[in-house]
């Protein structure tokens, strides 16, 4: 479970407040999309939730542990074991083959387990098993993004974070990526949190957090599509602007 308590984030000097106090709760096993216009602070929010960034004020609590209280070392272990990341730009290591890229996070684990069968399973699941020995440069954009997702999943994280995972892809590939997210969420019970500006892709989540000018303006439950609730629900604070 991820809890946010009055999280604020400012940049620059003089400071401009990008996030103006966000309180939210994301339950274990949820699939949540964060939507909003560009500049609404949705990516910033994702980086705060995923411990890559630290808030200026407020607290991020993951599984009951305040992230701010963790040391650098604990934070890195935390990321390694519990989190998977997918970025808009796939960020594969160009020197390594697809399979080696997927296995990269396991190098940090000192247990000496062999993750290769699981990596192959993931590649097979994503339909790119036959390209395991190709370098990223020899793969298409969609294939690269699938490798990146497989890499994010290799250590079976509890949380999968994605920042505009479809941003660089055509709609067919984008949809495929979201379908993978859905199946990951459904089959493995992974908590999936992703940022997108595409309303069609956002609808594929169980819950949409709508971010406007650094505040959560409401949430949509796409399963009941026309139910746009403005009244606060437990765990979400809506402030008048």
């Amino acid at each position, binding site marked *: 479970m991820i809890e946010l308590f009055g999280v604020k984030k400012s940049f620059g000097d003089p400071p401009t407040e990008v996030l103006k106090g966000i309180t939210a709760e994301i339950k274990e096993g949820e699939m949540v999309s964060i939507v909003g216009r560009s500049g609404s602070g949705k990516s910033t929010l994702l980086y705060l939730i995923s411990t*890559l960034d630290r808030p200026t004020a407020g607290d991020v609590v993951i599984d009951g542990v305040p992230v701010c209280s963790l040391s650098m070392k604990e934070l890195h272990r935390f990321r390694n074991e519990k989190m998977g990341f997918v*970025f808009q730009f796939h*960020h*594969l*290591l160009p020197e*390594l083959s697809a399979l080696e890229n997927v296995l990269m996070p396991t190098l*940090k684990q000192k247990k000496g387990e062999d993750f290769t069968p699981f990596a192959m399973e993931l590649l097979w699941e994503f339909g790119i098993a036959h390209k395991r020995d190709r370098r990223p440069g020899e793969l298409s954009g969609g294939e690269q993004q699938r490798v990146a997702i497989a890499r994010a999943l290799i250590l079976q994280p509890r949380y999968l974070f994605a920042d505009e995972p479809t941003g660089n892809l055509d709609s067919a590939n984008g949809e495929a990526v979201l379908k993978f997210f859905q199946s990951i969420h459904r089959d493995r019970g992974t908590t999936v949190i992703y940022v997108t500006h595409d309303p069609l892709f956002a609808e594929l989540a169980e819950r949409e957090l709508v971010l406007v000018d650094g505040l959560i303006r409401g949430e949509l439950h796409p399963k009941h599509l026309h139910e746009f609730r403005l009244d606060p629900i437990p765990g979400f604070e809506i402030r008048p602007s």
Partner: protein
Amino acid sequence: MWFLAVRHLLSRRKQTLLTVTGILLGTAAYVVISGLMIGFQDFLVDQLVNNDAHVKVSARADKLTAQSLDQAFYGDQFVSWIKSPSGRKDNPYIVSPGTWMQRLEHDPSVSGASAQMVAQVIATHGKISSTAKLIGADPDQQKKVSNIDDYMLSGHLDEIGKSGSRIVIGKDLADTLGAVNGETIYLSAGKAQPQPFRIVGIFHLGVKSIDETTIIGALSDAQKLNMTPGRVTDIAVRLHDLRQAREMAGLWNLMAEEKVESWDQANEGLMSVFSLQDIVRNSMTIAILIVASFGIYNILSLAISHKTREIAILRSMGFEPGDITRLFLTQGMALGAIGGLAGLIFGYLICAYLGTIEVSADRGLGGNHLFMSYNLSIYFMGFMLAFISACVASVLPARSAGKMEPIDIIRGEGE
């Protein structure tokens, strides 16, 4: 991270090769220059040391001062000399050579000692005469302190021990006098009529200052010629370990009034030339390695600036700053190690080639090839220089890579 570091290096083959070549040349230059210079130094030291002595005990030649004689002649009276006494006190000689020899022979660090009577003489052959230094010594003792016997063109050092005024002389001196082995030359110490000596051997060290002036004869013959029977002016000492020379000389100096000098003290001028050579050699090498280090620094910095995204993703996977630093540090170290090793091999090959070159310099029986040193310490030092400078050059970029925060990199890309 080794595996990724290797992949990184292989992925930019050209740069890697260039950097390695830079380090290779630096290391090879060090090996070759050191090999040449140290080889030359070793040769000179060998000639000087092994044919003279590691440590030399010699009589102190005290000079008279204006006040030296006051006490003896006038007691405590104040004396003003019209012409003050001057000159050397008697002929210098070692007061009790027997005690010295006994002491040296029982010293565990001494491998041999030779009591000598050294005198300046004029050698005459026919109408030609030349000044020379006559060293009177016992051939058995002398062989223990110098390896002159290895440099004999003809004859043996042993023969001077046989009765009847026999000597061995340097090749250049023999040439000057026009004398050959078996002929008789006349020696005079300036105190009596010249006396005949028979040449029974000619040596050739390759060191002109010795070959041109030195005559070696039996101790008793030299003493007789100099009219100083039983006297010894020098004791040449050979140690088991050459490096102890200075220390032992210092120690023995305290024990008697004789002057005790180690070979390097006696050749102070040459030693300062050597140390100057070392300075030149080292500063040259350091200059080369600095250039190579800048190459490493540049290439790593460039690689890191190209790889910021990958650094960000590695960090988000849970790799720590230390891991990132190590990733790039390993690359620099690998470049240094590979370049260093290759440089040693390349340097060795050049040395081996240079060693076959004949030079016109006359170098006795050692042949007239360039003398190259293959001392292991040169190779060790060369490798360490390459490796350490590579490490130092990669520390800065590697640390800056480790300090990058993933969020800054991701954000810097713009949304």
